[in-house]
């Protein structure tokens, strides 16, 4: 049974069990086409990006390093807080205040020989497409929907159909208490994070009127202090959720209100939790979800088994609320997805055209055929057909040329038309070369 073949990039004893999976054809590998001899080396040459070095991120970094990935980058802008130490196991008490990415990278490098982890103590938005081009795989362990949407849109926009290397699979893990999910996205090929936006249940909000008139729970009293009493009394110029003095003010207000309505249970810790919207993070959920994500990373990198994502199931949800339940399914791509259903198409324009001419041209272009188009660039509203006030404000633009309006070659514009209620268009302006 013992395999004696030594493949490049593989230290036989250390990776014995991993090599059994990644170098041998098995029931899940792709028939005769599977060649396991190059996998270890290929994985050594891959560069993987991990976004987030928190609860999920620590697990993901450790798992990837132990799965045979050698080049890993990690981005996280946060510093370590004492409350992280119970589950973010790469951090110690003396690390409090230091950058998560930095400390996590050093810890894993020290424990897993031969792995190189490059930390970036920054926001993902600080990097451009050139930076993200260097990775073959992106694994996210994030807690913010905004950051997910950003990296998703970036990876989808980077796809160049003629460049194989521009497709970066995105593996996304998320947890909330006992629940979690992992999913795999092949940008432009499978349903993306924007398509799946409705899968994130927005935080359950309590009606304002309940807060104002009939609080029933301690949380209602705290929310009342937070959204109503604070604004009415403005004890400090702006609310700093990390300032104990501010939280204390809210706590005292909430307590008075709770006494008035005979509601027990308002504490300082609960106040902090409600105001900062803290959902208890559970280490076990993080490790289940991170394991699933890294399993997908290994499968994509090695082809040792079909991964989630294509062509069938791409979404695994996990719930540990009542025993353990998982369900894996295919989330369909949305045709009207503003990110992936809607890639910017190139549009040949003459920079000397007036905006009016461009707008007119949409009516006759076979690819558009829009009758009442409204058009905007990222930071400039060019022409809006409605509402009236915007139409009036932007009408003078119609007589200006594209250059006068500050548009440049390669700039993206969004075009909407009420006749196409569900669809909006994006065009990348391509300036005709003037003779």
């Amino acid at each position: 049974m013992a395999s004696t073949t030594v493949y490049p990039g593989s230290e036989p004893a250390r990776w014995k069990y991993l090599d059994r999976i990644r170098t041998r054809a098995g029931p899940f590998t792709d028939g005769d086409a599977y060649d396991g001899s190059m996998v270890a080396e290929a994985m050594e040459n891959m560069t993987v990006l991990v976004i987030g070095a928190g609860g999920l991120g620590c697990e993901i970094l450790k798992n990837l390093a132990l799965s045979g990935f050698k080049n890993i980058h990690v981005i996280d802008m946060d510093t370590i807080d004492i409350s992280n130490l119970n589950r973010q196991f790469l951090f110690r008490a003396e690390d409090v205040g230091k950058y998560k990415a930095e400390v996590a990278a050093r810890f894993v490098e020290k424990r897993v020989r031969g792995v190189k982890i490059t930390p970036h103590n920054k926001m993902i938005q600080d990097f451009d497409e050139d930076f993200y081009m260097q990775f073959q795989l992106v694994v996210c362990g994030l807690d913010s929907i905004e950051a997910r949407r950003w990296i998703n849109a970036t990876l989808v926009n980077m796809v160049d159909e003629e460049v194989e290397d521009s497709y970066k699979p995105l593996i996304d893990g998320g947890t909330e208490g006992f629940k979690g999910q992992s999913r795999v996205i092949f940008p432009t090929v499978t349903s993306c994070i924007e398509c799946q936006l409705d899968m994130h249940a927005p935080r359950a909000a309590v009606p304002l009127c309940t807060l104002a008139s009939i609080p029933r729970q301690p949380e209602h009293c705290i929310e009342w202090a937070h959204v109503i009493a604070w604004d009415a009394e403005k004890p400090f110029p702006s609310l700093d959720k990390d300032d104990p003095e501010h939280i204390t003010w809210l706590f005292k207000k909430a307590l008075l209100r709770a006494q008035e309505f005979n509601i027990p249970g308002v504490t300082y810790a609960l106040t902090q939790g409600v105001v900062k919207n803290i959902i208890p993070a559970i280490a076990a959920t993080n490790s289940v979800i991170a394991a699933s994500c890294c399993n997908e990373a290994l499968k994509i990198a090695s082809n040792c088994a079909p991964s989630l994502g294509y062509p069938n199931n791409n979404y695994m949800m996990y719930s540990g609320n009542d025993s353990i339940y998982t369900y894996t399914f295919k989330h369909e791509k949305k045709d009207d997805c503003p990110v992936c259903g809607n890639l910017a198409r190139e549009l040949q324009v003459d920079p000397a055209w007036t905006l009016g001419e461009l707008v007119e041209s949409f009516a006759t272009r076979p690819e558009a055929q829009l009758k009442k188009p409204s058009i905007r660039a990222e930071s400039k509203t060019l022409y809006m057909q409605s509402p009236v006030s915007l139409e009036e404000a932007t009408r003078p633009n119609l007589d200006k040329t594209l250059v006068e309006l500050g548009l440049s070659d390669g700039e993206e514009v969004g075009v909407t038309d009420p006749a196409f209620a569900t669809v909006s268009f994006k065009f990348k302006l391509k300036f005709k070369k003037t003779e």
Partner: protein
Amino acid sequence: MLKIWSMKKEQQKAENAEGAAGGKKKKVTAAQLRVQKDLSELSLGSTMRTEFPDPDNILSFILYVEPDEGMYRGAKFSFTFNITPNFPHEPPKVQCREKIYHPNIDLEGKVCLNILREDWKPVLNLNAVIVGLQFLFLEPNASDPLNKEAAEDLRTNREGFKRNVRVAMGGGSVKGVLFDRVLK
């Protein structure tokens, strides 16, 4: 020969850099595109109009509402709309700019409208919010009060409430609170 080769390389690099610069152009965000779509589909009717302090920033604007029937007829109210980059995952933030006497709008301008908070869904759009606001002036709702005194007033003495609304809209004071004049 070597020199020509290296010059060619330099040239290619410059061209690539130009191409890459094109790639870094700011892109229309999903939230902006959605707001643009919502705005171009808006049906405001004659009782409402918008104002954009900065037309290039469509994520922030003012909505004027002039009810032509109901207890709030004859007045003009304004609301600020602030839309976050997380739209439509998050609802727009809407606040009344005047101090008014209304059971569902408090003295700070906070609005109790279910779709602005607990019942918001990404499939809803700006039109739904605007219709909701308009409805609040036609049918103030005493069972979901944000201004408890006003709600109590409406529940127990509808005619008295109507009179108080007129007084408040005229810039008078009701139960010791001075209101903004909103009558046209």
